[in-house]
């Protein structure tokens, strides 16, 4: 999996931004994201997560394994804060939670075929209640807005096609926080730097799978080469849909979507927003050329205004 030919130095070099270049460096399908970032042809395959939420049991082993392996701090120092909204007491992804298990209880009509209640957990009068559980994570976008906007080069693309923050470089400007269309990355209070999932970059370099995937007892979180995961996901989607859940859909698996496809994608059983995911995220950088054109116009207006104010007599 890992390639010793790619040294750590090449990872921290400043050349691994997606600046400039052909149009697809900013938006659209991109076949080899690591090559686009400047890695030589010998770089490892792009890896990712396929999170199949239809088999998630909400155990949160992924959250725990992630915090353990990555040594994430507990700002509440062991105190338990309950959200009161569901069994989800993590709430959201953040600087100290790089996996987040969403928990949704919803009323649905009784299944047409009572023989297929595999995803249904309880029956109420006239309808059925089901629980949706999904382990969310950084999407490691093909076109990562956080990486695009980072002014220091702290955020870089790795040789595995993932996106990581270099804590020794980040100065906490928080631009990435507002740029991420998924609300994933955040600045850590008291630390001042931005943090997010690294897809266990240290483990990848050691040939291990990320801690969350390792800990997942149902294989809801699958780790592997992204191309293989997409094939597995297509087959799984067909199975789930055929078993009485036509509402199942893949999220983030399409290289033609607004972020060029996610490195971490999902099989969902309801609309993305039900899980707290944006329905159709687009990397903000897509519109950057147009933005600069409007700024150029505005700068010209300023120059014209000064010229008019100073034209004519010295009065």
């Amino acid at each position: 999996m890992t390639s010793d030919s790619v040294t750590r130095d090449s990872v921290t070099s400043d050349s691994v931004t997606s600046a400039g270049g052909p149009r697809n460096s900013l938006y659209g399908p991109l076949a080899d994201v690591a090559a686009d970032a400047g890695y030589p042809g010998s770089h490892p395959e792009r890896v990712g997560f396929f999170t199949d939420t239809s088999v998630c049991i909400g155990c949160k082993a992924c959250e725990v394994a992630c915090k353990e392996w990555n040594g994430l701090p507990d700002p509440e120092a062991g105190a338990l804060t309950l959200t009161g909204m569901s069994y989800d007491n993590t709430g959201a992804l953040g600087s100290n939670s790089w996996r987040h298990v969403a928990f949704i209880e919803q009323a649905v009509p009784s299944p047409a075929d009572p023989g297929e209640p595999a995803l249904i957990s309880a029956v109420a009068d006239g309808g059925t209640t089901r629980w949706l559980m999904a382990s969310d994570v950084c999407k490691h976008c093909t076109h990562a807005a956080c990486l695009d906007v980072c002014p220091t080069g702290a955020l870089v693309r790795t040789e595995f096609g993932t996106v990581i923050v270099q804590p020794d470089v980040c100065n906490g400007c928080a631009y990435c926080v507002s740029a991420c269309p998924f609300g994933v990355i955040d600045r850590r209070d008291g630390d001042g730097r931005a943090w997010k999932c690294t897809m266990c970059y240290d483990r990848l370099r050691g040939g291990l799978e990320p801690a969350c995937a390792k800990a997942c007892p149902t294989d809801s979180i699958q780790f592997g080469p992204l191309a293989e995961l997409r094939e597995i996901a297509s087959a799984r989607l067909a199975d789930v849909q055929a078993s009485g859940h036509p509402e199942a859909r893949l999220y983030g698996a399409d290289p033609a979507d607004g972020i060029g496809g996610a490195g971490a994608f999902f099989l969902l059983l309801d609309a993305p927003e039900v899980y707290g995911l944006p329905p159709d995220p687009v990397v903000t950088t897509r519109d950057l050329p147009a933005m600069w054109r409007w700024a150029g116009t505005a700068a010209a207006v300023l120059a014209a205004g000064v010229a008019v104010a100073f034209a004519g007599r010295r009065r």
Partner: protein
Amino acid sequence: MTEQPQVPPADFQSYYGKPILKVSRWQEPHLPAYLFLGELSGALAMVGAAADVTGRPSLARAARLGAAAGAFAGGAFLTAELGRPERFLNMLRVAKPTSPMSMGSWILATHSGLVSATAASELTGRLASLGSVAGVGSALTGPLLAAYPGVLLANTAVPAWHEAYRQLPLLFTGGAMTAAGAAGLAVSALSRDRAEFAAAGRLAFIGAAVESLAGYGLETMPGLAGEPYRTGPGGRMLTAARYLTMGGGVAALAARRSRTAAAVSAALLTGGGLCAKFAVLRAGKASAADPKYVVASQRAARPGSQGE
């Protein structure tokens, strides 16, 4: 089974109403103060060069000193925004066209150097020709410094900022004119020879018109996009900005004849410009905090996306 009739009718669904996006960590008064001081410095550098070239020495002197003060005060607010202020020089570690903040850091660094050289020459009276050359250079970086924050804010996932990428740069360059014009009017209210400062009054008036127009453009963005600028904390601030700026623009017309009018105009325009910056930050935070701005706008832009 694709339909869910039990779910109460709603414009959008969400995860317990929780935000999808992270609310910006940029804070008050740092970000609005930086936006104001940056555009002030940018336009004052242009005023300084124009006054120098057209033979208005008192105005040139005031503008050059103000441009340097604005750049340094703005830079201080910007640095204080960082989670690790001691690493502010990392901003100049790379030059990255995809990052408006990287571009802006280089613009600010170049501009600060030029306005410092110009101000130093003005204060000491030494190397006047070099000072003038630096002053002309800062008149070129000035409009960039005033305009780029529009791209800085727009190039985010924050709905109220991203969707305003046409209006925000104009709000800031219009605000640059009112801020610099107001600074000139404030000095003129205290000056003996006030004739030179008429240009500042004209600039203030033009700026007030442009800034008000851009603010109107924000409020009238169709549908959900303009809502954070019409209602809530952002809407209230933008309304205040509009009255202050328009009042200041009218008062600027009388500034040549009346010191009081000049002082009042300067105060109103400065207040209006600051309110507009606070309005933009608050509207952005409001639009990131409520998932409806994300879900409804993305659903409207491309219905049937993501396997619907």
